[in-house]
């Protein structure tokens, strides 16, 4: 089983969202489950800092040896920061998906919807595996 930290929120597209309880700015990455399914990540394209996104927008992509996946904005708002470290070293998505492998930060506008709890995401991924 993949590591699914209790304190994070999740999307059906296998992203995690941190900092939701504090309300203003959240951090987003892809889950360990997603990273394991992709295999070695070799390229990450992220949105530009300062851009505005709506929840569900495709804002970037993650490529591995075998496949490519889109990254979706889990919440709407302004991209306030992107993680240059993972652009430079995409293997961070595999080695530390919930830490150094974070992807971008969003200043939330409006109410985030449809995010999953850790328990709900665990149920989702055990159904897929």
């Amino acid at each position, binding site marked *: 089983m993949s590591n699914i930290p209790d304190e994070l929120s999740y999307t059906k597209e296998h992203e995690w969202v941190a900092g939701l309880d504090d309300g203003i700015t959240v951090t987003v990455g892809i889950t360990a489950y997603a990273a394991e399914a992709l295999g070695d990540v070799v*390229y990450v394209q992220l949105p530009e800092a300062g851009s505005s996104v709506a929840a569900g927008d495709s804002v970037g992509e993650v490529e591995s040896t075998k496949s490519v996946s889109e990254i979706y904005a889990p919440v709407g708002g302004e991209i306030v920061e992107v993680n240059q470290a993972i652009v430079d070293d995409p293997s961070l998505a595999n080695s530390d998906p919930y830490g150094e492998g974070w992807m971008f930060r969003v200043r939330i506008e409006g109410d985030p919807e449809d995010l999953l709890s850790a328990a709900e995401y665990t149920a989702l991924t055990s159904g897929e595996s």
Partner: protein
Amino acid sequence: MSRPTPLRDVHESLGATLTDFAGWLMPLRYGSESAEHNAVRQAAGLFDLSHMGEIFVTGPQAAEALDYALVGQLSALTPGRARYTMIVNERGGVLDDLIVYRLGDEEFMVVANASNYEKVAAELTDRAKPYDAAVEDRSERYALIAVQGPRAQEILATLTDADLAGLKYYAGLPGLVDGREALIARTGYTGEDGFELFVAAQDAVPLWQALTVAGEPYGLLPAGLSSRDTLRLEAGMPLYGNELGPELTPFDAGLGRVVKFDKPGDFVGRSALEAVKDTPPRRRLVGLVARGRRVPRHGYPVTKDGAVVGEVTSGAPSQTLGKPIALAYVDTGAEAGLAVDIRGSQEPVDLVELPFYRRNK
């Protein structure tokens, strides 16, 4: 439901990610496919290839039957040697690419791709009918384990007295490996030196374990289909279903040299292939190296000045080159100013000579 190989339990105990490939449940990777790829380039990798088909053609006219059935001249093959060849249809379209081992004067083993061997066995049976030769699909009885990489010979030498140093590339000899009967072949699909071991299915697990132990001091890693694909791609080797198929001739794929028109007698596809052998194909198989980091993948269009001039057949990030690489069919004459349409964005690529990677001998 995918068929397991005799090594399925071993793969599961190693934590492999398993995937369906051509109807078989195969290891995609055990850990990091990049580490597996690099192990084969720098040390050695251990592969389960038991999904491949082994078809035996035997009898007084086995050689003549294969000369008729395939594009190569197998009658010219010395016992103990092997040849890369193809089986084509009447139109010259490729039904499969094959390695044929001549085991004796009247005994050949045809190794076919997993996705094709039932079709190949049926075609060979049909084509051999006029000859005094028997065709038998023995795929179920055999497991195939490959040890590939610069340390492969040292590793295998710890388990066999066979004359590995004297075994040439594309040759095979029977021998004992860890006390088990094997056909030891110096062949592979990685661009490295290495061996393929054809053994009885029930010997697969103990042989795998013996090789794992023997290879440990040399840095051998179990390697899955993901790394096998990137290794063969770097080596510029075609994959049936990607670079080869029934709508393409060996000449389209730049492999016209496997067609032996000067052999005696007719062969299936001769007239169709003679008609195209001196005509440059509309599109030819080329290598592409991306300038950026986005990866051209199977099916993506190749463009020049906004017009489609080809299509990618295989693409992957290359560990060895540090850049994405691809094989593609591209219009003859289109060489400079090429791009690959990667999800709507024209990413520049450079056309290069194949292979992308050649080992130091």
